[in-house]
Protein backbone atom coordinates (compact mmCIF):
# COMPACT_ATOMS: atom_id res chain seq x y z
CA UNK A 1 0.00 0.00 0.00
CA UNK A 2 2.82 2.30 0.90
CA UNK A 3 3.88 3.15 -2.61
CA UNK A 4 0.80 2.16 -4.59
CA UNK A 5 -1.20 5.41 -4.24
CA UNK A 6 1.80 7.40 -5.46
CA UNK A 7 1.74 5.50 -8.71
CA UNK A 8 -1.97 5.98 -9.23
CA UNK A 9 -1.99 9.65 -8.36
CA UNK A 10 0.05 10.32 -11.44
CA UNK A 11 -2.43 8.45 -13.62
CA UNK A 12 -5.09 11.13 -13.61
CA UNK A 13 -5.38 14.60 -12.25
CA UNK A 14 -7.90 16.14 -9.92
CA UNK A 15 -10.19 18.56 -11.67
CA UNK A 16 -12.54 20.99 -10.02
CA UNK A 17 -15.56 19.32 -11.60
CA UNK A 18 -16.86 16.81 -9.06
CA UNK A 19 -18.84 14.77 -11.59
CA UNK A 20 -15.78 14.41 -13.79
CA UNK A 21 -13.71 13.29 -10.85
CA UNK A 22 -16.23 10.63 -9.88
CA UNK A 23 -16.48 9.41 -13.49
CA UNK A 24 -12.70 9.21 -13.64
CA UNK A 25 -12.68 7.14 -10.43
CA UNK A 26 -15.24 4.71 -11.76
CA UNK A 27 -13.43 4.01 -15.03
CA UNK A 28 -10.95 1.82 -13.20
CA UNK A 29 -12.12 -1.68 -12.36
CA UNK A 30 -10.04 -1.86 -9.18
CA UNK A 31 -11.64 1.34 -7.88
CA UNK A 32 -15.14 -0.03 -8.51
CA UNK A 33 -14.15 -3.22 -6.68
CA UNK A 34 -12.71 -1.21 -3.80
CA UNK A 35 -15.84 0.95 -3.55
CA UNK A 36 -18.26 -2.00 -3.65
CA UNK A 37 -16.26 -4.04 -1.14
CA UNK A 38 -15.74 -0.97 1.01
CA UNK A 39 -19.48 -0.30 1.05
CA UNK A 40 -20.34 -3.85 2.15
CA UNK A 41 -17.67 -3.84 4.84
CA UNK A 42 -18.56 -0.34 6.07
CA UNK A 43 -22.22 -1.23 6.63
CA UNK A 44 -21.41 -4.48 8.44
CA UNK A 45 -18.61 -2.99 10.55
CA UNK A 46 -20.79 -0.10 11.65
CA UNK A 47 -23.67 -2.36 12.73
CA UNK A 48 -21.49 -4.90 14.57
CA UNK A 49 -19.27 -2.13 15.94
CA UNK A 50 -22.27 -0.32 17.38
CA UNK A 51 -23.06 -3.36 19.51
CA UNK A 52 -19.38 -3.78 20.40
CA UNK A 53 -19.14 -0.22 21.69
CA UNK A 54 -22.38 -0.70 23.60
CA UNK A 55 -20.99 -3.87 25.21
CA UNK A 56 -17.64 -2.17 25.96
CA UNK A 57 -15.72 -4.97 24.27
CA UNK A 58 -13.28 -2.72 22.45
CA UNK A 59 -10.24 -4.56 23.81
CA UNK A 60 -11.54 -7.98 22.77
CA UNK A 61 -12.47 -6.54 19.37
CA UNK A 62 -9.02 -5.07 18.91
CA UNK A 63 -7.41 -8.38 19.84
CA UNK A 64 -9.63 -10.22 17.35
CA UNK A 65 -8.60 -7.77 14.67
CA UNK A 66 -4.92 -8.37 15.38
CA UNK A 67 -5.47 -12.14 15.29
CA UNK A 68 -6.37 -11.65 11.64
CA UNK A 69 -2.71 -10.85 10.93
CA UNK A 70 -1.22 -14.30 11.77
CA UNK A 71 -4.20 -15.80 9.93
CA UNK A 72 -3.34 -14.01 6.73
CA UNK A 73 0.41 -14.52 7.16
CA UNK A 74 -0.05 -18.22 7.90
CA UNK A 75 -2.33 -18.63 4.89
CA UNK A 76 0.28 -17.14 2.57
CA UNK A 77 2.90 -19.38 4.20
CA UNK A 78 1.05 -22.59 3.37
CA UNK A 79 -0.25 -21.23 0.08
CA UNK A 80 -4.01 -20.96 0.55
CA UNK A 81 -6.07 -17.81 -0.15
CA UNK A 82 -5.58 -15.15 2.53
CA UNK A 83 -9.35 -14.87 3.07
CA UNK A 84 -9.41 -18.42 4.49
CA UNK A 85 -6.69 -17.46 6.93
CA UNK A 86 -8.58 -14.34 8.00
CA UNK A 87 -11.82 -16.16 8.73
CA UNK A 88 -10.24 -19.25 10.34
CA UNK A 89 -8.00 -17.21 12.63
CA UNK A 90 -10.73 -14.81 13.71
CA UNK A 91 -13.20 -17.64 14.32
CA UNK A 92 -10.65 -19.51 16.46
CA UNK A 93 -9.79 -16.27 18.23
CA UNK A 94 -13.44 -15.67 19.13
CA UNK A 95 -13.69 -19.18 20.59
CA UNK A 96 -10.50 -18.68 22.64
CA UNK A 97 -11.54 -15.24 23.86
CA UNK A 98 -15.15 -15.99 24.76
CA UNK A 99 -14.38 -17.41 28.23
CA UNK A 100 -12.05 -14.49 28.90
CA UNK A 101 -14.43 -11.66 28.05
CA UNK A 102 -17.75 -12.69 29.45
CA UNK A 103 -20.05 -9.74 28.92
CA UNK A 104 -19.67 -6.19 30.15
CA UNK A 105 -16.49 -4.89 31.73
CA UNK A 106 -13.71 -7.43 31.81
CA UNK A 107 -12.01 -7.91 35.16
CA UNK A 108 -8.31 -7.26 35.54
CA UNK A 109 -7.08 -10.86 35.31
CA UNK A 110 -9.23 -11.35 32.20
CA UNK A 111 -7.70 -8.37 30.43
CA UNK A 112 -4.29 -9.93 31.06
CA UNK A 113 -5.52 -13.08 29.31
CA UNK A 114 -6.75 -11.06 26.33
CA UNK A 115 -3.46 -9.17 26.13
CA UNK A 116 -1.49 -12.42 26.24
CA UNK A 117 -3.56 -13.94 23.44
CA UNK A 118 -3.04 -10.80 21.36
CA UNK A 119 0.73 -10.70 21.77
CA UNK A 120 1.03 -14.43 21.14
CA UNK A 121 -0.99 -14.10 17.94
CA UNK A 122 1.15 -11.23 16.69
CA UNK A 123 4.32 -13.10 17.59
CA UNK A 124 3.09 -16.08 15.59
CA UNK A 125 2.25 -13.75 12.70
CA UNK A 126 5.76 -12.35 12.73
CA UNK A 127 7.17 -15.88 12.82
CA UNK A 128 5.08 -16.84 9.77
CA UNK A 129 6.18 -13.75 7.89
CA UNK A 130 9.85 -14.38 8.58
CA UNK A 131 9.47 -18.05 7.62
CA UNK A 132 7.85 -16.87 4.40
CA UNK A 133 11.11 -15.00 3.68
CA UNK A 134 10.96 -11.36 2.92
CA UNK A 135 8.25 -9.48 1.06
CA UNK A 136 8.30 -6.65 3.57
CA UNK A 137 5.80 -4.67 1.54
CA UNK A 138 3.46 -7.60 2.05
CA UNK A 139 3.61 -6.98 5.79
CA UNK A 140 2.57 -3.36 5.55
CA UNK A 141 -0.25 -4.37 3.20
CA UNK A 142 -1.53 -6.88 5.77
CA UNK A 143 -1.19 -4.39 8.60
CA UNK A 144 -2.32 -1.16 6.99
CA UNK A 145 -4.60 -2.39 4.25
CA UNK A 146 -4.70 -2.11 0.54
CA UNK A 147 -7.46 -1.16 -1.81
CA UNK A 148 -5.87 -1.87 -5.14
CA UNK A 149 -5.62 -5.63 -5.04
CA UNK A 150 -9.22 -6.62 -4.34
CA UNK A 151 -10.22 -9.41 -6.73
CA UNK A 152 -13.74 -9.98 -8.09
CA UNK A 153 -14.17 -13.18 -6.09
CA UNK A 154 -13.17 -11.40 -2.92
CA UNK A 155 -15.81 -8.72 -3.52
CA UNK A 156 -18.53 -11.39 -3.84
CA UNK A 157 -17.30 -13.13 -0.69
CA UNK A 158 -17.30 -9.88 1.29
CA UNK A 159 -20.84 -9.04 0.16
CA UNK A 160 -22.07 -12.50 1.19
CA UNK A 161 -20.37 -12.20 4.59
CA UNK A 162 -21.83 -8.74 5.13
CA UNK A 163 -25.36 -9.89 4.25
CA UNK A 164 -25.07 -12.91 6.58
CA UNK A 165 -23.72 -10.78 9.43
CA UNK A 166 -26.42 -8.14 9.09
CA UNK A 167 -29.11 -10.83 8.88
CA UNK A 168 -27.79 -12.40 12.09
CA UNK A 169 -27.86 -9.03 13.84
CA UNK A 170 -31.38 -8.43 12.57
CA UNK A 171 -32.54 -11.79 13.99
CA UNK A 172 -30.70 -11.57 17.32
CA UNK A 173 -30.77 -7.78 17.64
CA UNK A 174 -33.49 -7.38 20.27
CA UNK A 175 -32.30 -10.00 22.78
CA UNK A 176 -28.69 -8.91 22.16
CA UNK A 177 -29.58 -5.32 22.94
CA UNK A 178 -31.40 -6.43 26.09
CA UNK A 179 -28.47 -8.61 27.19
CA UNK A 180 -25.95 -5.85 26.45
CA UNK A 181 -27.78 -3.18 28.42
CA UNK A 182 -28.85 -5.29 31.39
CA UNK A 183 -27.43 -8.80 31.44
CA UNK A 184 -28.89 -9.76 34.82
CA UNK A 185 -32.35 -8.62 33.85
CA UNK A 186 -32.07 -10.42 30.53
CA UNK A 187 -30.90 -13.63 32.21
CA UNK A 188 -33.83 -13.41 34.61
CA UNK A 189 -36.21 -12.98 31.69
CA UNK A 190 -34.89 -16.18 30.12
CA UNK A 191 -32.57 -14.72 27.49
CA UNK A 192 -29.56 -17.04 26.93
CA UNK A 193 -27.03 -14.33 27.86
CA UNK A 194 -23.90 -16.46 27.73
CA UNK A 195 -24.73 -18.06 24.40
CA UNK A 196 -25.51 -14.62 23.00
CA UNK A 197 -22.18 -13.29 24.26
CA UNK A 198 -20.24 -16.14 22.65
CA UNK A 199 -22.25 -15.81 19.45
CA UNK A 200 -21.63 -12.09 19.35
CA UNK A 201 -17.87 -12.63 19.63
CA UNK A 202 -18.04 -15.05 16.70
CA UNK A 203 -19.98 -12.45 14.72
CA UNK A 204 -17.41 -9.85 15.71
CA UNK A 205 -14.67 -12.17 14.48
CA UNK A 206 -16.47 -12.52 11.15
CA UNK A 207 -16.87 -8.76 10.78
CA UNK A 208 -13.27 -8.10 11.76
CA UNK A 209 -11.94 -10.70 9.33
CA UNK A 210 -13.89 -9.07 6.51
CA UNK A 211 -12.96 -5.51 7.49
CA UNK A 212 -9.27 -6.37 7.87
CA UNK A 213 -9.11 -7.32 4.20
CA UNK A 214 -9.85 -3.71 3.26
CA UNK A 215 -8.41 -1.59 6.05
CA UNK A 216 -5.59 -3.88 7.20
CA UNK A 217 -5.50 -5.47 10.62
CA UNK A 218 -4.20 -2.40 12.43
CA UNK A 219 -6.86 -0.02 11.16
CA UNK A 220 -9.98 -2.18 11.54
CA UNK A 221 -11.12 0.03 14.40
CA UNK A 222 -11.54 3.01 12.15
CA UNK A 223 -14.73 1.43 10.76
CA UNK A 224 -15.62 -0.70 13.79
CA UNK A 225 -15.30 1.69 16.72
CA UNK A 226 -15.07 5.27 15.56
CA UNK A 227 -18.41 5.57 13.67
CA UNK A 228 -20.19 3.72 16.47
CA UNK A 229 -18.60 5.88 19.16
CA UNK A 230 -19.55 9.00 17.17
CA UNK A 231 -23.14 7.80 16.83
CA UNK A 232 -23.41 6.97 20.52
CA UNK A 233 -22.05 10.39 21.41
CA UNK A 234 -24.88 11.94 19.39
CA UNK A 235 -27.88 9.79 20.26
CA UNK A 236 -28.81 7.18 22.84
CA UNK A 237 -31.68 5.71 20.78
CA UNK A 238 -30.67 2.34 19.27
CA UNK A 239 -32.42 2.71 15.90
CA UNK A 240 -31.18 6.22 15.20
CA UNK A 241 -27.72 5.31 16.49
CA UNK A 242 -27.39 2.32 14.18
CA UNK A 243 -28.49 4.33 11.14
CA UNK A 244 -26.12 7.15 12.05
CA UNK A 245 -23.19 4.76 12.54
CA UNK A 246 -23.81 3.18 9.14
CA UNK A 247 -24.09 6.60 7.48
CA UNK A 248 -20.83 7.85 9.03
CA UNK A 249 -19.03 4.64 8.16
CA UNK A 250 -20.17 4.81 4.52
CA UNK A 251 -19.29 8.48 4.25
CA UNK A 252 -15.73 8.09 5.53
CA UNK A 253 -15.12 4.98 3.42
CA UNK A 254 -16.26 6.60 0.18
CA UNK A 255 -14.54 9.91 0.87
CA UNK A 256 -11.37 8.17 2.07
CA UNK A 257 -11.14 5.96 -1.02
CA UNK A 258 -11.90 8.90 -3.30
CA UNK A 259 -9.36 11.25 -1.74
CA UNK A 260 -6.69 8.55 -1.55
CA UNK A 261 -7.06 7.99 -5.29
CA UNK A 262 -6.10 11.59 -6.01
CA UNK A 263 -3.54 12.08 -3.27
CA UNK A 264 -0.15 10.48 -2.69
CA UNK A 265 -1.03 9.72 0.94
CA UNK A 266 -2.26 6.24 1.97
CA UNK A 267 -5.96 5.38 2.20
CA UNK A 268 -5.61 4.23 5.82
CA UNK A 269 -4.51 7.69 6.82
CA UNK A 270 -7.47 9.35 5.08
CA UNK A 271 -10.15 7.03 6.45
CA UNK A 272 -8.84 7.20 10.03
CA UNK A 273 -8.44 10.97 9.92
CA UNK A 274 -11.91 11.57 8.47
CA UNK A 275 -13.65 9.34 10.98
CA UNK A 276 -11.62 10.72 13.88
CA UNK A 277 -12.44 14.27 12.77
CA UNK A 278 -16.16 13.45 12.80
CA UNK A 279 -15.78 11.90 16.27
CA UNK A 280 -14.10 15.05 17.61
CA UNK A 281 -16.85 17.19 16.07
CA UNK A 282 -19.54 15.01 17.65
CA UNK A 283 -17.90 15.19 21.07
CA UNK A 284 -17.51 18.96 20.76
CA UNK A 285 -21.15 19.35 19.75
CA UNK A 286 -22.26 17.27 22.71
CA UNK A 287 -20.04 19.26 25.08
CA UNK A 288 -21.51 22.52 23.74
CA UNK A 289 -25.02 21.25 24.34
CA UNK A 290 -24.09 20.42 27.90
CA UNK A 291 -23.80 16.64 27.48
CA UNK A 292 -26.80 14.94 29.03
CA UNK A 293 -25.33 11.43 28.90
Amino acid at each position, binding site marked *: *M*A*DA*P*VAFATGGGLTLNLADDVRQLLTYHFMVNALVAGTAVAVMAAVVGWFM*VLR*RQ*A*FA*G*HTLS*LIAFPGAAGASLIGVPAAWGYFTACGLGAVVLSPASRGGR*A*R*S*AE*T*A*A*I*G*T*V*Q*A*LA*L*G*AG*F*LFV*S*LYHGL*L*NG*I*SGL*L*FGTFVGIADGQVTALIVVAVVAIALVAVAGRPLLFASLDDEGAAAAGVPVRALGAGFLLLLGLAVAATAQIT*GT*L*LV*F*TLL*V*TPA*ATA*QALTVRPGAGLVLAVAISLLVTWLGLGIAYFS*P*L*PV*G*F*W*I*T*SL*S*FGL*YVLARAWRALRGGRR
Partner: protein
Amino acid sequence: MLSHEFIRLALLAGTPIALACGLVGYMVVLRSEVFAGDALSHVAFTGALAAAAAGIDLRAGLFAATVAVAASMGLLGPRAHADDIVIGTVFTWILGLGALSLSLFVSGRSSGNGAGGVHVLFGSIFGLGAGEARLAALIAVGVIAALIAIARPLLFASLDGAVAEARGLPVRGLGVLFLCLLGLTAAEATQAVGALLLLGLLAAPAGAAHRLTVNPYRGLALSGALAVGALWLGIALAYSVPSFPPSSAIITVAAAAYLASGAATRLRRREVSRLAGPTDP
Protein backbone atom coordinates in the same frame (compact mmCIF):
# COMPACT_ATOMS: atom_id res chain seq x y z
CA MET B 1 26.52 -18.10 23.03
CA LEU B 2 27.78 -15.38 25.39
CA SER B 3 30.92 -14.90 23.31
CA HIS B 4 28.86 -13.00 20.72
CA GLU B 5 28.79 -9.27 21.17
CA PHE B 6 25.16 -8.94 19.98
CA ILE B 7 23.92 -11.50 22.53
CA ARG B 8 25.70 -9.69 25.37
CA LEU B 9 24.22 -6.36 24.26
CA ALA B 10 20.78 -7.92 23.94
CA LEU B 11 21.03 -9.26 27.49
CA LEU B 12 22.44 -5.97 28.81
CA ALA B 13 19.54 -3.94 27.40
CA GLY B 14 16.88 -6.64 27.58
CA THR B 15 17.21 -7.62 31.24
CA PRO B 16 16.36 -4.21 32.75
CA ILE B 17 13.72 -3.64 30.07
CA ALA B 18 12.04 -6.96 30.87
CA LEU B 19 12.24 -6.24 34.60
CA ALA B 20 10.61 -2.85 34.05
CA CYS B 21 7.91 -4.47 31.90
CA GLY B 22 7.20 -7.09 34.56
CA LEU B 23 6.93 -4.57 37.40
CA VAL B 24 4.94 -1.96 35.48
CA GLY B 25 2.82 -4.72 33.94
CA TYR B 26 1.81 -6.00 37.37
CA MET B 27 0.40 -2.57 38.20
CA VAL B 28 -1.18 -2.31 34.73
CA VAL B 29 -3.10 -5.55 35.26
CA LEU B 30 -4.01 -4.57 38.82
CA ARG B 31 -5.44 -1.25 37.58
CA SER B 32 -7.17 -2.89 34.57
CA GLU B 33 -5.27 -0.65 32.18
CA VAL B 34 -4.06 -3.36 29.80
CA PHE B 35 -5.92 -1.69 26.94
CA ALA B 36 -4.11 1.57 27.67
CA GLY B 37 -0.82 -0.31 27.44
CA ASP B 38 -1.99 -1.79 24.16
CA ALA B 39 -2.79 1.69 22.83
CA LEU B 40 0.55 3.09 23.98
CA SER B 41 2.39 0.31 22.19
CA HIS B 42 0.70 1.39 18.97
CA VAL B 43 1.51 5.02 19.66
CA ALA B 44 5.15 3.98 19.97
CA PHE B 45 5.04 2.78 16.37
CA THR B 46 3.74 6.10 15.08
CA GLY B 47 6.22 8.09 17.16
CA ALA B 48 9.21 6.15 15.92
CA LEU B 49 8.12 6.25 12.27
CA ALA B 50 7.28 9.96 12.41
CA ALA B 51 10.78 10.59 13.75
CA ALA B 52 12.23 8.41 11.00
CA ALA B 53 10.24 10.29 8.35
CA ALA B 54 11.42 13.61 9.78
CA GLY B 55 14.98 12.34 9.79
CA ILE B 56 15.65 12.61 13.54
CA ASP B 57 16.63 9.91 16.05
CA LEU B 58 13.93 7.22 16.25
CA ARG B 59 14.09 7.15 20.03
CA ALA B 60 13.34 10.86 20.36
CA GLY B 61 10.01 10.34 18.57
CA LEU B 62 9.37 7.12 20.46
CA PHE B 63 9.68 8.65 23.93
CA ALA B 64 8.00 11.94 23.03
CA ALA B 65 4.94 10.22 21.52
CA THR B 66 4.35 7.60 24.22
CA VAL B 67 4.85 9.95 27.17
CA ALA B 68 2.72 12.71 25.63
CA VAL B 69 -0.16 10.34 24.83
CA ALA B 70 0.11 8.62 28.22
CA ALA B 71 -0.06 11.94 30.04
CA SER B 72 -3.04 13.14 28.01
CA MET B 73 -4.89 9.83 28.55
CA GLY B 74 -4.39 10.24 32.27
CA LEU B 75 -5.42 13.88 32.29
CA LEU B 76 -8.50 13.42 30.08
CA GLY B 77 -9.84 10.18 31.53
CA PRO B 78 -12.10 10.11 34.58
CA ARG B 79 -10.07 9.52 37.79
CA ALA B 80 -6.93 9.25 35.63
CA HIS B 81 -8.29 6.04 34.12
CA ALA B 82 -8.82 6.19 30.40
CA ASP B 83 -12.11 5.03 28.89
CA ASP B 84 -11.92 2.05 26.49
CA ILE B 85 -13.87 3.62 23.67
CA VAL B 86 -11.93 6.89 23.80
CA ILE B 87 -8.65 4.93 23.79
CA GLY B 88 -9.81 2.85 20.83
CA THR B 89 -10.88 5.89 18.83
CA VAL B 90 -7.76 7.91 19.52
CA PHE B 91 -5.19 5.22 18.92
CA THR B 92 -6.79 4.17 15.64
CA TRP B 93 -6.29 7.68 14.37
CA ILE B 94 -2.72 7.71 15.67
CA LEU B 95 -2.11 4.43 13.81
CA GLY B 96 -3.49 6.10 10.69
CA LEU B 97 -0.83 8.77 11.20
CA GLY B 98 1.64 5.88 11.56
CA ALA B 99 0.58 4.57 8.15
CA LEU B 100 1.13 8.07 6.79
CA SER B 101 4.61 8.29 8.32
CA LEU B 102 5.48 4.85 7.00
CA SER B 103 4.51 5.85 3.47
CA LEU B 104 6.37 9.17 3.73
CA PHE B 105 9.42 7.38 5.12
CA VAL B 106 9.36 4.69 2.44
CA SER B 107 8.81 7.05 -0.48
CA GLY B 108 11.47 9.40 0.89
CA ARG B 109 14.16 6.75 0.57
CA SER B 110 15.51 5.17 -2.56
CA SER B 111 15.52 1.58 -1.28
CA GLY B 112 11.74 1.60 -1.12
CA ASN B 113 11.01 -1.17 1.37
CA GLY B 114 9.38 -1.09 4.76
CA ALA B 115 12.28 -2.59 6.71
CA GLY B 116 12.44 0.30 9.17
CA GLY B 117 8.74 -0.01 9.88
CA VAL B 118 9.02 -3.76 10.39
CA HIS B 119 11.85 -3.26 12.89
CA VAL B 120 9.75 -0.83 14.88
CA LEU B 121 6.69 -3.10 14.78
CA PHE B 122 8.41 -6.35 15.67
CA GLY B 123 11.65 -5.28 17.32
CA SER B 124 15.21 -6.27 16.66
CA ILE B 125 16.89 -6.99 19.98
CA PHE B 126 19.83 -8.62 18.20
CA GLY B 127 20.48 -5.42 16.25
CA LEU B 128 21.15 -3.04 19.14
CA GLY B 129 24.36 -1.03 19.09
CA ALA B 130 26.53 -0.65 22.20
CA GLY B 131 25.47 2.94 22.89
CA GLU B 132 21.78 2.18 22.29
CA ALA B 133 21.88 -0.82 24.61
CA ARG B 134 23.55 1.16 27.40
CA LEU B 135 21.08 4.05 27.16
CA ALA B 136 18.09 1.68 27.05
CA ALA B 137 19.41 -0.12 30.14
CA LEU B 138 19.90 3.18 32.00
CA ILE B 139 16.37 4.43 31.24
CA ALA B 140 14.89 1.06 32.24
CA VAL B 141 16.73 1.21 35.57
CA GLY B 142 15.33 4.70 36.06
CA VAL B 143 11.77 3.47 35.41
CA ILE B 144 12.25 0.58 37.86
CA ALA B 145 13.56 2.95 40.55
CA ALA B 146 10.66 5.36 40.05
CA LEU B 147 8.11 2.56 40.19
CA ILE B 148 9.58 1.10 43.38
CA ALA B 149 9.57 4.58 44.91
CA ILE B 150 5.83 5.05 44.28
CA ALA B 151 4.87 1.37 44.67
CA ARG B 152 3.28 1.64 48.12
CA PRO B 153 0.99 4.64 47.55
CA LEU B 154 0.23 3.43 44.01
CA LEU B 155 -0.88 0.01 45.29
CA PHE B 156 -3.10 1.69 47.88
CA ALA B 157 -4.60 4.05 45.28
CA SER B 158 -5.16 1.19 42.81
CA LEU B 159 -6.79 -1.17 45.27
CA ASP B 160 -9.05 1.36 46.97
CA GLY B 161 -9.04 4.75 45.32
CA ALA B 162 -11.76 6.31 47.44
CA VAL B 163 -10.13 5.48 50.78
CA ALA B 164 -6.72 6.52 49.51
CA GLU B 165 -8.15 9.85 48.43
CA ALA B 166 -9.80 10.32 51.82
CA ARG B 167 -6.43 9.68 53.46
CA GLY B 168 -4.99 12.57 51.44
CA LEU B 169 -3.11 10.64 48.74
CA PRO B 170 -2.89 12.42 45.37
CA VAL B 171 -4.72 9.59 43.55
CA ARG B 172 -5.09 11.49 40.29
CA GLY B 173 -1.47 12.62 40.22
CA LEU B 174 -0.33 9.06 40.92
CA GLY B 175 -2.49 7.78 38.07
CA VAL B 176 -1.01 10.26 35.60
CA LEU B 177 2.53 9.60 36.83
CA PHE B 178 1.97 5.88 36.47
CA LEU B 179 0.65 6.26 32.92
CA CYS B 180 3.79 8.27 32.08
CA LEU B 181 5.94 5.44 33.47
CA LEU B 182 3.89 3.06 31.33
CA GLY B 183 4.60 5.27 28.32
CA LEU B 184 8.34 5.19 29.05
CA THR B 185 8.21 1.41 29.44
CA ALA B 186 6.36 1.05 26.14
CA ALA B 187 9.02 3.13 24.38
CA GLU B 188 11.75 1.02 25.98
CA ALA B 189 10.15 -2.30 25.16
CA THR B 190 9.59 -1.23 21.55
CA GLN B 191 13.36 -1.37 21.13
CA ALA B 192 13.47 -4.91 22.50
CA VAL B 193 10.42 -6.79 21.22
CA GLY B 194 8.75 -4.21 18.99
CA ALA B 195 5.64 -2.08 19.25
CA LEU B 196 3.20 -4.86 18.45
CA LEU B 197 4.59 -7.51 20.78
CA LEU B 198 5.42 -5.54 23.90
CA LEU B 199 1.93 -6.12 25.27
CA GLY B 200 2.92 -9.75 25.78
CA LEU B 201 5.80 -8.73 28.00
CA LEU B 202 3.50 -6.39 29.93
CA ALA B 203 0.46 -8.62 30.31
CA ALA B 204 1.58 -12.25 30.35
CA PRO B 205 4.09 -12.28 33.28
CA ALA B 206 1.83 -9.95 35.25
CA GLY B 207 -1.25 -12.08 34.57
CA ALA B 208 0.64 -15.18 35.69
CA ALA B 209 1.81 -13.43 38.88
CA HIS B 210 -1.76 -12.31 39.63
CA ARG B 211 -2.91 -15.90 39.30
CA LEU B 212 -0.16 -17.34 41.48
CA THR B 213 -0.25 -14.98 44.44
CA VAL B 214 -2.52 -12.35 45.97
CA ASN B 215 0.27 -10.71 47.97
CA PRO B 216 1.10 -7.55 45.95
CA TYR B 217 4.83 -7.37 46.81
CA ARG B 218 5.39 -11.06 46.14
CA GLY B 219 3.34 -10.60 42.95
CA LEU B 220 5.49 -7.66 41.81
CA ALA B 221 8.69 -9.64 42.37
CA LEU B 222 7.28 -12.73 40.67
CA SER B 223 6.06 -10.73 37.69
CA GLY B 224 9.47 -9.10 37.23
CA ALA B 225 11.25 -12.44 37.57
CA LEU B 226 8.93 -14.11 35.05
CA ALA B 227 9.44 -11.31 32.52
CA VAL B 228 13.24 -11.51 32.83
CA GLY B 229 13.11 -15.31 32.62
CA ALA B 230 10.95 -15.12 29.48
CA LEU B 231 13.44 -12.75 27.88
CA TRP B 232 16.46 -14.94 28.69
CA LEU B 233 14.80 -18.16 27.59
CA GLY B 234 13.45 -16.45 24.48
CA ILE B 235 16.87 -15.16 23.49
CA ALA B 236 18.40 -18.61 24.06
CA LEU B 237 15.62 -20.18 22.01
CA ALA B 238 16.04 -17.72 19.14
CA TYR B 239 19.81 -18.25 19.23
CA SER B 240 19.52 -22.01 18.96
CA VAL B 241 16.75 -21.96 16.33
CA PRO B 242 17.89 -19.35 13.80
CA SER B 243 14.60 -19.13 11.88
CA PHE B 244 12.73 -18.24 15.10
CA PRO B 245 12.70 -14.41 15.45
CA PRO B 246 13.76 -13.37 18.98
CA SER B 247 10.65 -11.25 19.57
CA SER B 248 8.32 -14.15 18.74
CA ALA B 249 10.40 -16.49 20.93
CA ILE B 250 10.25 -14.17 23.95
CA ILE B 251 6.50 -13.71 23.62
CA THR B 252 5.96 -17.46 23.17
CA VAL B 253 7.85 -18.21 26.40
CA ALA B 254 5.92 -15.50 28.27
CA ALA B 255 2.57 -16.82 27.03
CA ALA B 256 3.58 -20.37 27.95
CA ALA B 257 4.35 -19.15 31.48
CA TYR B 258 0.88 -17.61 31.65
CA LEU B 259 -0.77 -20.86 30.50
CA ALA B 260 1.31 -22.87 32.98
CA SER B 261 0.24 -20.56 35.80
CA GLY B 262 -3.38 -21.29 34.94
CA ALA B 263 -2.75 -25.04 35.13
CA ALA B 264 -0.82 -24.61 38.40
CA THR B 265 -3.65 -22.66 40.05
CA ARG B 266 -6.18 -25.26 38.96
CA LEU B 267 -4.06 -28.11 40.36
CA ARG B 268 -3.52 -26.28 43.63
CA ARG B 269 -7.21 -25.50 43.97
CA ARG B 270 -8.02 -29.18 43.47
CA GLU B 271 -5.38 -30.09 46.07
CA VAL B 272 -6.80 -27.60 48.57
CA SER B 273 -10.37 -28.79 48.08
CA ARG B 274 -9.23 -32.42 48.40
CA LEU B 275 -7.48 -31.66 51.70
CA ALA B 276 -10.23 -29.45 53.05
CA GLY B 277 -13.41 -31.13 51.92
CA PRO B 278 -14.11 -34.65 53.16
CA THR B 279 -17.13 -34.78 50.83
CA ASP B 280 -14.84 -34.64 47.82
CA PRO B 281 -13.94 -38.16 46.63
